[in-house]
């Protein structure tokens, strides 16, 4: 593994009982690279992400990456009994924890809310704190499992802009699981399609015009494109 890569996955296998969900999957993500992962529901995206996060065991293959990647889940998972700054620095043992939290909260547009309780936040704000919590660790690899799925369309667009900025500044490798083809096109450098337990296709967003990419991806996912009709 070179210093440039965030994670290398080789020949990964994962099964639940008899059912093989991930079957010989290979994947490399560079630092600063934003990778989106699309795939039909139940194809194993979350399973892959949890394996990379070290939350679940694997049944074969290698994961060559950081032991402690940062994870953002679909729900914010903030501790309701801890202030925002304590939430952000959870598990970060430095004397300047408070300062770091202030900076991180500032980056996600929540400066001055350090002492607030999570319950006083809107869904979008809470998810921004979860982002701050991930970034304050300066992770080499950041794993996001549909982090914006529960947000309204407008907030989601704002989050796309924000997360692109943050990734450009901190340069972690990013794996974003999403259901939203347009979201993937809007924020990712590379889009992967998962099928049959492996990576079935890979597209660089810089190479293809968004409408064509959108149509291709929808076809990959088995959805009839409606762009011509529209």
């Amino acid at each position, binding site marked *: 593994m070179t210093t440039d890569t965030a994670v290398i996955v080789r020949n990964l296998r994962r099964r639940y009982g008899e059912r093989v969900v991930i079957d010989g999957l290979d994947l490399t993500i560079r630092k600063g690279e934003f990778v989106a992962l699309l795939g039909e529901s139940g194809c194993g995206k979350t399973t892959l992400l949890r394996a990379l996060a070290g939350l679940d065991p694997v049944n074969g293959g290698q994961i060559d990456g950081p032991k402690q990647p940062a994870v953002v889940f679909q729900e914010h998972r903030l501790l309701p*009994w801890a202030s925002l700054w304590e939430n952000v620095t959870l598990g970060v043992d430095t004397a300047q924890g408070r300062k770091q939290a202030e900076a991180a909260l500032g980056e996600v547009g929540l400066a001055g809310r350090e002492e607030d309780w999570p319950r006083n936040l809107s869904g979008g704000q809470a998810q921004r704190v979860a982002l701050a919590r991930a970034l304050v660790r300066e992770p080499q690899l950041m794993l996001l499992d549909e982090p914006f799925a529960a947000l309204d369309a407008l907030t989601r667009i704002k989050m796309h802009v924000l997360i692109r900025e943050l990734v450009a500044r901190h340069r972690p490798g990013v794996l974003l699981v999403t259901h939203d083809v347009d979201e993937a096109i809007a924020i990712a450098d590379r889009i992967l399609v998962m099928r049959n337990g492996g990576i079935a296709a890979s597209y660089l967003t810089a190479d293809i015009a968004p409408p064509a990419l959108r149509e291709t991806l929808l076809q990959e996912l088995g959805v009839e494109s409606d762009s011509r009709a529209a």
Partner: protein
Amino acid sequence: MTIELLNREALKPTVQEHIPRPAATEAQLQLLSWAAPVAILLAWEVASRAGLIAPQVLPAPSSVAETAWRLTVSGDLFKHLGASLLRAAIGFVIGGAIGFALGVLVGFSRVAEASLDRSIQMIRAIPFLALLPLVIVWFGVDESGKIFLVALAVLFPIYINTVLGIRQVDPKLLELARVTGLSRMKTIRKIILPGAMPSILTGVRYALATAWLALVVAETVATTSGIGFLAMDAREFLQTDVIVLAILIYAVIGISADGLARFLERKLLAWHPNYAKEGRK
């Protein structure tokens, strides 16, 4: 234009009439809630003075107040109150600590659960007051027996609610602990205990109520000090005013204990939407 304006002016009072007015303010309702108790107290006083109630049966409120004053001045009241509260506090701390420790152990470890929980549940099935004769045989009539009873009464509610609280901690937050690399100790301190706290405090509140019940019974058995002694001693001489006073003091202790539990909940669960006052920290 003018006509319309006039019309609107004419409409105004009618509109205002439709605004529902609160039936009574909060303060008025508070006042009302005290009306009945005060009325009963007055009726009691009048009936006593008129000789309708014999003082040996039920003394007048004023004579109870007099007795309270007399015992306060002589210092007896505080001596006995102090003795009772000390017993309750020692018993509570001992029983609470054991209950909490067992609860944490069983909450965390399936092995501990398998080896301890059944026995604890069996002992719990005994109404602790049924142990009274045995407690007297074991400890005699001195302090330790009373403390033992209080501790026993406190142990179970704390134990059960601690186990429950720990088991109910959101597994998603435990997963978070893993991805943020929290150590075992920090996971317990920052996630499991705060998550279990609402349940633990429910146990504390319940335990305060049972502790106080245990105290009353234990002190009635045989003592040379405490509120219970005050009452039992007075019984010998048919001093109903002292007996009523002792009962009132128990009531006040009960209310204070509940107030203490509520205070703890407000302090420790400030983050919790159910306990928080409006607004931020």
